[in-house]
């Protein structure tokens, strides 16, 4: 069965022809119009607009006016074990990436150091502001990949955690 992962949740569903079934319930919908980043869909008693864009390996959806990342897994993807390998979400915990391009002003940790959740790792200056990059959970610094004074690109891995 194909599945989606969104908001930390995995939901399996079935497609038969154009029909969608979730837990044996048919999800009634009718696509009215389809554009590059937008679907107009009749769902139940209302016409809904779904705004989304394909980004990287997933889809970014606007739900209740908040951007959500969704991964769509076909039967083939699941056979290849993408679910089991964890996907990008789990990797995010082991690598700290630069959230924006900027200048590394100060590095506050060294390799091998144990850090608590919320600990300051690095100060990155971008857009005239000093931004503190902190840990999301208790972890250990495996490697610091940048040095003070270095200019980093957005999404460049700056610290590896274990």
């Amino acid at each position, binding site marked *: 069965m194909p599945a989606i992962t969104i908001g930390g949740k995995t939901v399996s569903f079935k497609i038969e022809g154009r029909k969608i079934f979730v837990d044996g319930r048919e999800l009634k919908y009718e696509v009215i119009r389809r554009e590059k980043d937008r679907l107009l*869909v009749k769902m139940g008693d209302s016409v809904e607009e779904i705004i989304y864009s394909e980004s990287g390996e997933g889809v970014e959806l606007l739900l209740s006016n908040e951007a959500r990342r969704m991964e*769509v897994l076909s039967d083939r993807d699941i056979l290849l074990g993408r679910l089991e390998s964890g996907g990008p979400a789990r990797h995010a915990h082991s690598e700290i990436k630069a959230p924006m391009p900027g200048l590394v002003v100060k590095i506050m940790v060294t390799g091998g150091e144990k850090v608590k959740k919320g600990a300051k790792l690095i100060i990155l200056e971008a857009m005239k502001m000093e931004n503190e990059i902190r840990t999301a959970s208790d972890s250990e610094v495996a490697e610091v990949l940048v040095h003070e004074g270095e200019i980093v690109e*957005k999404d460049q891995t700056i610290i590896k955690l274990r």
Partner: protein
Amino acid sequence: MTTRKIQKVLVANRGEIALRIMRTLKEMHIRSVAAYSEVDISMPFVRYADEAYSLTGKEARETYLDIGKIISAAKKSGADAIHPGYGFLSENSQFARETERAGIIFIGPGAETIRLMGDKTEARKIVAGYGIPVVPGTAEAVTDLKEAADIAGQIGYPVLVKAAAGGGGKGMRLVTEESELESSLRGAQSEAASAFGDGRIFIEKYILGPRHIEFQILADLHGNVVHLFERECSIQRRHQKVVEETPSLALSPALRQVMGRSAVGAARACGYVNAGTVEFILGDDGNYYFLEMNTRLQVEHPITELTTGLDIVREQIRIAEGEAISMSQESITRRGHAIECRIYAEDVYGNFLPDTGTLKTLREPAGNGIRVDSGVEAGSDISVYYDPMIAKLSVWDNTRENAIEKMIRALDDYVITGVKTTIPFCTFVMKSAPFRSGKYSTHFVQENWKVDDMDPSSLSQEALDRALVVAATQLLDRDRSSFQPRKEGEKRSHSGWMDGRFER
């Protein structure tokens, strides 16, 4: 005094504020000139202008901060005035001086006033001399740690360490005990030195339950000074404003009158001319103190325009032309309630770090009482070069309650994809009990925005259903493209309808 009609204005700025100024110029039949950096050539403000000149380069310092380039663009265009907007060179006294020296009108106060008020230490001294309350602290910049520790001890912790040339939270540190003083001094100093080229620091008392209240003032060349009431700007993140409203619920009519008089007094104290803003900090004990004066048009000026019915940019131009303010303080009135939310490209769940990217879908809210000051369109880049502001969303309604509901609706109607925005945070503010009750301070974010306690992953059934529909259409697409490859040598057909017709 003779008046001199302005015919053509160069706007030394970019984005929403450049566009906002040019709109008023158009209404006044004054020609507008844009001066743009290379990365901005496709921005709406460049094509909105009657003329546009390139400031070769990308970085702010080689474009919007380059006095020589901007003045030569102004001369080349034949502009008789320059409007500096906010940020960039707007509070640079040298820019004002060189503009005047080139025989061009600077739409703002005189260079000397900008210099005086730009130096926070100097500004407080002048204003205090006119009997306006200032926050207890150092009158002179501190030079060494020993002196700093003595002063902080006298005032009593907590104290704030601030850059003399600072602003917008840059070069500012809160120190709760003496052991933190040294590292905070160093940090503020290095930030101030790199951001402003001036590392001088002063120390002041930290006010409890503080609210940031500012007064808009207008002053002309004939000595008339009036205020256009207050703006409440206490909702801040990273010491920078994000939500503003007027009137403020923290001010009684009596306090408003007293503070308004202080604001006018501060403007008089420095010989102010044109539009400016006097910022105060109001403690939970009802005491207020002069903080600083912003010698320019303020980001959040739209809410004053919405409640007073005035166009502040038009007033600025008339004042610059030498006209006298025609209104008396008593004749200026205010109606209803206005709120502004700043829409920045930021990750509100990730420490409000700026986000960059290309705006994919962009749909602005509209309808009765809604004003959007935006300088971007779908396809525009939010780049690392400048401030990550996308737009300012302001609403007006007859009561505060209605204005809040209108803002919630407008935020919900606002569709932006491609970058993360402050919209979810602004909606949170509007719905929060402290904001609704009006009992909030500049600590709002710290006290109420608890990202760890939130569960952003929770999705409603409807939201999940929508996601499933998108997923299904994507999978059906993949099936179509991967399972129906065109076979070698297969007859190419353009349309089923044509096939049916000709193959019969």
